[in-house]
């Protein structure tokens, strides 16, 4: 039973790190701000769920698992909020997605 849980947790951790890393590449390589935001915030969500889920399986029924779940809930609430707030602030400042795309390509 423990090996099954171990393998499952490793799969989750590995998948999480792949997602996180892909998100990192997207943050670096995408051409405009909004696309970068998209890459960062989406992979943040799934990467957090997978990595913390894998850690919860490692921790078992302990206080650590509860703390991990608290971190997970916290990150899942704050991550999208921060992404929304950022996109909103950028939009309010007059940085429009389509204009930005054109100007960025030209640069």
């Amino acid at each position, binding site marked *: 039973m423990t090996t099954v849980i171990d393998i499952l947790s*490793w799969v989750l*951790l*590995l998948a*999480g*790190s*792949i997602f*996180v*890393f892909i*998100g*990192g*590449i997207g*943050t*670096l390589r995408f051409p405009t*701000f909004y696309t*970068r*935001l998209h890459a*960062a915030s989406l992979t*943040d969500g799934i*990467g*957090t769920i997978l*990595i*913390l889920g*894998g*850690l919860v399986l*490692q*921790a078992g029924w*302990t*206080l*650590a698992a509860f*703390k*991990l779940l*608290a*971190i997970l809930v*916290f*990150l899942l609430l*704050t*991550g999208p*909020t*921060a*992404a929304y*707030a*950022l996109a*909103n*602030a*950028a939009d*309010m*400042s*007059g*940085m429009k997605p389509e204009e*930005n795309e054109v100007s960025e390509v030209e640069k």
Partner: protein
Amino acid sequence: MFYVVSIAIMLTMALALVRAFLGPSVYDRVLSVNVFGTKTTLLLAVIAFLYGRPDFLDLALAYAMINFIGILAVLKFFQVRSNQQQKNQLPGDDLNDNRD
């Protein structure tokens, strides 16, 4: 296994850092600070397991909280500044080309 995860997270941190250096707009930099913060939270959680001391997860929780408050503080800063610019009718420095 934890090593693989932490190396992946650290590489992502490095990528986010490069984005923070490059910009070009301030929002890109704020975005990379946010990405960096969540990755630091995850890294700390993983390292707590790596060290075999999961009771240190408090730190990761604190990081997550502080990171969020920081982003909202930045948002507030943008709002205050745009208010000031409207009030003073200053030409205003264009946010979108902060290439330095």
